[in-house]
């Protein structure tokens, strides 16, 4: 085995130029760091222009990621940057490929380990770290803490490191340019397959994600080890064995991680802050939230709101609860003819607006936009629908499941300020962000409206747990993020609730170790048309006198309340006595 330390002495170097003398002196000394630095400089000299182009492309990609719709610019920067990084890696590895007899890697005085180490450091600082840095700006404003930022860094670093080390180790085995090309294509196919597989890992499967994270680390380690074995120990067999073993284990790991440590799992959140109970009949004197005219929830603290997940009979058999197709939920709508259930993009109701009313002057006129069915089905309607599938529903006990949220004011600025510059608001829980700006001050339709163009982004690194508690999944799926825009005009005694675009979220953008989706979140606020027409109030004056607040519901947990059959009958009877609500 050739020693790592150069054997030649200064006396052996005859007739060299001054530059070479200095180089030789540096090489001939036993200073590993100096040799390392020399090799890194050599790598830089060899590839500096390509690296500069790479940095330029990554800079462009970083800028593109900050745009509302990255689109074409992202395609034109990130894709070439990806290929260029592979090219830089390939050229560097090929220049000192241990198996290639055309290069003199075995006899260079700088030492094989130093060459290997320098290349690893060179790739790390010129390719890997800039790639990680370019990915960071797009995650600003999501209320990330240290844990989440760690997840972002690892989520970006691991796939890139996997690609880089695999490319390096495969190309280091090439003995000729032809083999390099073939192995390069093989690397590309493998890498593409890996990336697609990792990007399509369901972010609902925590164990698989954890396994994938460990697999990525294992793959990096085995590829580095394999490369080291080949470059330094010149043992091709050992290198291949290490690579194959590591690769096979890494590929199987995500699927076999069932027994492993699931650090992403977080406990479900049950609401226990205050005791809640149901009141049947007309509104209780102590107040409470109206769920139905004859059913009230008592005991909610201020700013807290209950959303109905389901009101359904409990079956004595061990059938899953809640059953499919409940029409009592605030989160879904059911076509009573076809039975098809669809998720409601907007699940916040008047109850959420009522919770805010205490923060604004009493007697204010609250204005909003029409909703299709503000009242929802009556208790009688719920029972009638349930009887179609559960004929004995009236005789069974019922259960009411509610989700409790607390309304947080996350933004409060004079309207004039919100109009002048783009705004960014983070949700109370990490991972969600609303960016909005003035779209149009005077949309002429419906007497005039202000349109704010907004975008609700959700991004989260999948290698770390999402929050301290699992998000509520009414009926098995995550509800769409809702928020409420409120415009207060104290001079007019009016409070306006904005209307938000009901735009469904885009499908998850496939990304390795990240979940991300976004949707348009435009919202409009009506002008005080009557005041403008009758009193000459100008738009500018109204803007100057108004304040824009954004309220966001923070999940506080779920709660089940049992209702006996007798109580249900009592509630139905009470509903009948109260003024029937026509539709």
């Amino acid at each position, binding site marked *: 085995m050739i020693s790592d330390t150069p054997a030649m002495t200064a006396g052996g170097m005859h007739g060299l130029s001054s530059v070479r003398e200095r180089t030789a002196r540096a090489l001939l000394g036993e200073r590993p760091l100096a040799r390392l630095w020399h090799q890194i400089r050599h790598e830089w000299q060899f590839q500096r222009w390509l690296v500069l182009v790479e940095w330029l492309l990554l800079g462009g990609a970083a800028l593109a990621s900050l745009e509302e719709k990255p689109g074409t610019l992202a395609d034109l920067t990130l894709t070439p940057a990806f290929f260029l990084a592979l090219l830089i890696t390939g050229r560097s590895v090929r220049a000192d490929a241990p198996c290639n007899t055309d290069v003199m890697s075995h006899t260079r005085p700088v030492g094989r380990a130093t060459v290997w180490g320098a290349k690893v450091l060179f790739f790390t600082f010129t390719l890997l770290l800039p790639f990680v840095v370019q990915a960071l700006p797009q995650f600003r404003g999501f209320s990330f803490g240290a844990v989440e930022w760690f997840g972002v860094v690892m989520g970006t670093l691991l796939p890139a490191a996997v690609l880089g080390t695999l490319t390096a180790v495969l190309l280091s085995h090439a003995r000729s340019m032809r083999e390099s090309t073939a192995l390069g294509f093989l690397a590309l196919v493998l890498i593409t397959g890996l990336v697609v597989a990792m990007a399509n890992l369901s972010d609902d499967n925590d164990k698989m994600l954890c396994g994938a994270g460990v697999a990525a680390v294992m793959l990096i380690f085995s590829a580095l080890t394999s490369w080291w074995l080949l470059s330094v120990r010149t043992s091709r067999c050992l290198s291949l064995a290490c690579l194959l073993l590591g690769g096979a284990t890494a590929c199987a790991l995500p699927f076999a991680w069932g027994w492993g440590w699931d650090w992403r799992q977080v406990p479900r959140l049950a609401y226990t802050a205050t005791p809640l109970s149901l009141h049947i009949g007309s509104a209780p004197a102590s107040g409470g939230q109206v769920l139905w005219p004859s059913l009230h929830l008592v005991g909610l603290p201020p700013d807290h709101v209950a959303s109905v997940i389901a009101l359904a009979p409990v079956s004595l058999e061990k059938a899953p609860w809640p059953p499919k197709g409940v029409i009592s939920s605030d989160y879904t709508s059911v076509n009573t003819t076809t039975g098809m259930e669809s998720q409601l993009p907007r699940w916040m109701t008047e109850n959420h607006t009522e919770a805010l009313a205490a923060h604004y002057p009493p007697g204010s006129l609250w204005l909003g936009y029409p909703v299709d069915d503000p009242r929802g089905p009556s208790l009688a309607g719920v029972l009638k629908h349930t009887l179609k599938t559960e004929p004995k529903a009236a005789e069974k006990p019922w259960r009411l499941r509610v989700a409790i949220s607390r309304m947080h004011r996350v933004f409060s600025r004079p309207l004039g300020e919100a109009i002048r510059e783009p705004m960014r608001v983070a949700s109370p829980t990490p991972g969600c962000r609303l960016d909005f700006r003035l779209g*149009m001050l005077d*949309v*002429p*339709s419906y007497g005039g409206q202000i349109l704010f163009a907004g975008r609700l982004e959700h991004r989260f690194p999948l290698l770390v747990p999402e929050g301290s508690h699992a998000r509520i999944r009414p009926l098995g799926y995550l509800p769409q993020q809702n928020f409420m825009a409120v415009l207060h005009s104290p001079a007019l005694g009016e409070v306006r609730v904005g209307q938000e675009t009901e735009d469904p979220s885009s499908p998850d953008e496939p990304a390795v170790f990240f979940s991300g989706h976004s949707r348009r979140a435009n919202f409009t606020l009506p002008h005080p048309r009557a005041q403008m027409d009758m009193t000459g109030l100008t738009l500018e004056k109204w803007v100057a006198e108004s304040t824009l607040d954004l309220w966001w519901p923070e999940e506080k947990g779920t709660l089940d309340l049992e209702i006996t059959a007798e109580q249900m009958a009592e509630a139905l009877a009470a509903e009948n006595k109260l003024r029937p609500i026509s539709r």
Partner: protein
Amino acid sequence: MNLTLHQFNKEFRYLRPRWLVFLAALLVDLAFNMEWILALNTEGVTMIADMLFSAGLWIIGWWLALSTAPEDEAEGGAAFVRTRPLPRHAFVASRGLVWLLLIMLPMTLEVGLYLTLQHRPWSDVGLGMAEELWATSSMAFWVISAALLFRGWEIYLALVVFLAVWGANYGRTVVDFVFEHLSIESSWRTLPVLEPARFIQAAWWIGPAMVLLLLWHQRHHWHVVKRLSAFALLLLITYGLAASPLVKNPFDEPLEQAQIQQLAQAQPVVMRADSFRFTEGVDDQLRSLLNVSAVAEMDGLPRDVMPFWTSNKTVIRQNGHELPMLPPERTRTSGPGMINLWLFEHSLSGALNAGGPEKILAMNSAPEHGRFPFSRMQIPQDLKTPVDVDMHLTAVWARLRELGRAPLQAGARIHSPEAELEVLEVRKNVGARGEPAPGQVTLLVRQSLRTLSDRHAMWPAQPLLSLHAPGKKLLWQNSMQGGNDWRAMRLGWVQMIMEMTFGEVMNAGTGVTEQNLGSQQLVWIKPDYLGTSRHHVQVRDVSLQGNGSISLGGLHSVTALHQRENPRTRFLAAVRQGRVPLADAPIEEAARYVASVYTASAAYEQRRQQDPPGQLVWPGDDREVADLVAPFLLKHPELVQRLNFVTESALSYEIMNSALVQAGVPGFERRPGQPIYRRTVSLPEWPGATQKFESDLWLTDVGNERITSAVVQMLKTRSDDPMRALLASRVPSLGKAWRDFSARPAGKALRYLCKDPAYREKAGAEVSRQYGGLGLTVRFSDRELRIIIAQALMGDSAALSWALRAIGLSREVNPWEAHALLESHESLFGQKITHRQLAQFIRDCRVWTAESFRYDAEKMLWVPQANQ
């Protein structure tokens, strides 16, 4: 042996294994297109398979064409080739033979074999093979040059570049980016496989540049990176050229351009000022704008020939100044490729109506036949002053041709020289996604369409499948397409399978039931592109606010709280809780209070909800609110002119009435129901004679300005003289009635005009003219229905039949249509009906025919026959 052939032999020996791979790929491609493997289906990822197989074949073909023997590659191809006794032209020719014999010929034979196996005429087989030869030969310059430009492993890099730019759509991304920034409109909207002629032409144009690149490289020896970059650039240029307006799609050639030119010169285009509409919109930059649409008419057109209008340039002037226009929407382009899209909104039944009084009517074309969007403009400051419009129009002409008919049953077939159709499945009461959908019919059909150049069935317009009910003479022309898949787009006859869902088929009134569904018909209609004509039109005095255009004012905010409570009581409570000023408050303070009342009124607009139509959900009225506001109008009568009559007219009239009652103006009293002015006055000029006045304040034909002025005067003077003067002025002059009628035909106005012989003739001609321009459909705007009614009132029984059919197909409970239908009954039969009787009227119209009535010419009414 000829040196070229000798070199070809040598190449062939080396390329034989690769050629076998290529032949295998061809066989697999043929098997795929013949559906011997992976049959057409509507599930999963469709259409991608066809593109992948095609792309794979082209990649293998290129790989084969670029492969050269190793001995020809040494030292970059220089050493051995230079010393061989083989002239360069022979070497190049042998490469050409490789392309021709090993790739072009097999691909051409594949097309021939496919068309033969499909039992197509020999002429189609020959044409298909010739077209494939033409398409593949367009790559000759490219592959022969590339084989010499890239040697050894470099060919794989070249293939990667080709795949990235061409196959992976990266090229399209770049081209779109460049076009957008240079403001070039792309002429190509679809996939390369749907418009191959563009790409073939572009490949021919740019191919010689590859030869130049090769010659340059041979002189200056470029590094592989430079060569690949140049190659990629040429590919991008080809892509861009194909997408640009510089390349024409030969399938866009018109069939009867000369005749269309003659027609265009013979018939002037008429655009009436009252047909213009300006509707609010928002562009993708969130700028507010007005969309300008209008109806362009040409008289005497055959029913099966349809022009589709776009504007090349629109200039709109107001008071002599040009108003700023906006560029057209990017998604809206002109050209014959848009015919299918335009036909979605226009009745196809013109192709089927052979004559006779009873027309086939389309069930689901859009109302307002003949209306086209033309341009967009910024919203001007002055919306009241009329504008002058100057338009340079382009008309794309199409003729609707029936390809064939078949019964609506599984297994039914339609066969024509250019297209074939087979119904695989008929699903009743099933929607597009397989969900239960009462009344809908979903078909699974298989189509074969000819894509050869002399008669292309898919371009520029595809055939449209419609359902026809001969019993009721109805046509369902627009279907919702579900899953679909296609094959063999490249091979001359494309095979397609698709799901099509037709809505409202088995609805009440159509005469189609589950039992008789099989006796209905499928009709396949092919739009043929006839040609394009250009026109110049100028229209003066176009109102920016007429014809359903933008309306000023209007509130749209409802209450955000107390939504479950009685909105009527909540409204009153909100008014009482508001900041009520003192009785002697200045006018501005009073105005603020009145404005807050209106804001609260809009918030609680639910109090006016009717369900069923005509019956209030929340009984009551706004009298108490009006009584609270009225004192401020007594103090400041000018406030009346600030009241909102656009969306709160009922409240405004209630307030005015209350103010007049509180002011003690004679004739106004508090009574149940609508406020009414009722007064009997003696006539001084005729002693003993009296004149009785009775009217409500809501005089729709007078105008709010005159009403409010009168009310202000009455409040100031405490006299009702202004009201009587207003009522006296209501009898319109014939001239005014004629002006209003031509813009808004209505039965009552028609009868008024027909009392005068001169206006009778004019009115009749105008009604006939507008009636003739209506689309053959049952879905109308209110205005179009009034035109049909007016024609019926002239004694036209066919028009009466049309009206009855359209009304009979209305949805029984639809408050938005209720007003128009109530008006129709009153106009036709001279009797008012209530909302409660409306559903029965609709049901009766499904049974009634024109023969059920006789025409009373004197009263201009239709009267039921004695036995009805």
